[in-house]
């Protein structure tokens, strides 16, 4: 074995070692949540890396002790409507900004990006007044609307970039065929932008699903809470006891939809992240 081969083996090993460390670092918290969710109240505080006899009661009680099923449905409603709204708006905006020449469109694009610079906490009180005056306090629609603040800037940006790359002749062919701008967007461009829509839609979904601050502020009753708030506000039998088992079980449950979504759209996400040229 010469020095060159030796060097190759060492660098290989180092590479996989690095991968293992990164993998461990990212997956361990979730693994710990799974392990903790399968323990009874007393064993929770013992350090144990493997559960020998899993205790499933946490997964049942999280639904019994609070309206957790309702909370999941709330989250689904809010996330899906946020995604639908932001994609529809962003698609229309991207067509205007990406395909139509008008004065000040770069300025507009940067204003949209600028919106995402404000920390959520800075706009919170103003947002609260707005929601209140619209009569949407303690209503899920308040969340769908307010989440557009952080989903729209990046959906508009990504879709605009993508739409710009679509060949101009394709649009002109459709115009000659008698298509209106609406037809062009929905029947010609949208199918071609599938990967971009899936990728941005998924990112918007995750952002909406995990959002905490607005959800905490704009809802009051436990029936209106979304899952992050519901989990954070889970209370035990007494004020001094935190039901860690329930909290961990709930955390594991709410991660599942995201994993399923990513698996379902896996192929399209990859092509969405790499697709640049659309060839006829």
């Amino acid at each position, binding site marked *: 074995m010469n020095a060159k081969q030796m060097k190759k083996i060492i660098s290989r090993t180092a590479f996989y070692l690095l991968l293992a460390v990164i993998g461990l670092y990212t997956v361990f918290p979730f693994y710990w949540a799974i392990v903790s969710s399968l323990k009874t109240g007393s064993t929770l505080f013992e350090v144990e890396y493997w559960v020998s006899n899993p205790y499933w009661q946490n997964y049942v009680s999280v639904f019994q002790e609070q309206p957790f099923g309702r909370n999941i449905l709330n989250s689904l409603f809010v996330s899906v409507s946020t995604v639908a709204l932001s994609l529809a708006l962003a698609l229309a905006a991207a067509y205007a900004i990406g395909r139509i020449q008008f004065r000040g469109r770069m300025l507009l694009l940067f204003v949209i990006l600028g919106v995402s610079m404000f920390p959520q906490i800075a706009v919170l009180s103003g947002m609260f007044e707005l929601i209140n005056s619209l009569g949407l306090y303690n209503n899920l629609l308040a969340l769908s609307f307010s989440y557009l603040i952080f989903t729209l800037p990046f959906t508009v940006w990504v879709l605009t970039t993508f739409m710009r790359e679509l060949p101009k002749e*394709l649009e002109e062919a459709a*115009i000659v*065929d*008698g298509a209106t701008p609406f*037809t062009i967007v929905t*029947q010609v461009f949208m*199918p071609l932008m599938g990967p971009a829509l899936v990728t941005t839609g998924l990112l918007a979904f995750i952002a909406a699903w995990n959002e905490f601050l607005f959800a905490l502020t704009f809802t009051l009753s436990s029936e209106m809470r979304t899952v992050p708030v519901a989990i954070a506000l889970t209370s035990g039998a007494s004020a001094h006891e935190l039901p860690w088992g329930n909290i961990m079980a709930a955390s594991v449950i709410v991660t599942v939809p995201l994993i399923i979504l990513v698996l379902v759209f896996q192929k399209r996400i990859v092509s969405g992240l790499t697709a640049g040229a659309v060839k*006829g």
Partner: protein
Amino acid sequence: MAGISMQTVDKRFGKTEVIQQVDLAINDGEFAVFVGPSGCGKSTLLRLIAGLEEVSGGTIQFDNQDVTNLEPSERGVAMVFQSYALYPHMSVYDNMAFGLKLKKTDAKTIRERVQESARILQIEHLLDRKPKELSGGQRQRVAIGRAIVRKPRVFLFDEPLSNLDAALRVQMRLELKRLHRELGTTMIYVTHDQVEAMTLADRIVVLNGGRVEQVGTPLELYHHPANLFVAGFIGSPKMNFIAGKIAGCNGNLVQVDIGTSHPISAEVPESSSLKPGVPITIGVRPEHLSDADPSEGSEQTSHVEGTVIAVEHLGSEAYIHLKLNTNAADEPLVFKAIGDTGWETGQQATVTVEPGRCYLFDESGNAVERGH
């Protein structure tokens, strides 16, 4: 089907005038070709006719109907693009049916028309495929098919063959010609390739710098170019130009002094308008020069001598580039020799110029009338 007429059409992009005061009439059923160097405005002119660009001034009429402010679909035009511009996510059938569907044509008519067009273009077996599964030539046919199903009044082609390889281009050229014969619809075709223009056109429109230089049948342009630009653009290899002065006139012969020992004689129907001493440019096509024995030929033929600086062999013919024995730094003179000639660089050559084959252009570049 429609005849097209344009009156004083202007197009400006910001301050750049792309099309300037174009008056043009294209007859019903004609195959017209817009040709010119890149940036001459030929594509813009086509897009103005299509309605994809708005005119800055002037009017466009189809059969006496003013279409200047109509949308492309309202004008009844169909266009074939250079990049084909097929809808990538639709099958060939859907690509062709898209325009009809938008017009709310009933399903039966759509099917019949798509089938018929597919038959004309011999793409019936491809109807279920997606564009990405087709070759370049097949995509081009689909793009043409998408245009003909709509039975437009005018077909517009924007350099449709420039993405195809040479052999396929020749084949598609013949096919377009056949299509035009079968459909009889007015067609306007944009190209920068003068061979395509010569072979396809009923009439050619030569554009330069946003203006129409000349309109005429291919042979009219070849034999009677209106000016230096058209003379240089039509014909391949391009016409030789030699600057000189009129040395004298004799009946219908004009002697042009080009700085060699003997002047060149050129034939004109009427020489009285030409005054000795006036600068003039003489034009001769490479195919009209010959390297035949200088002692042969009539008295009126002239001869020029030069050094061979390059030889291009094409097999059936060869193009020989000569540096003339003059002091002027003229472009090399190119002449065509038939067959597998023995010319080599460095040799001295004498070429024969027939007076009747010469073109004359005055100081401002306009052609002096030719006899035939």
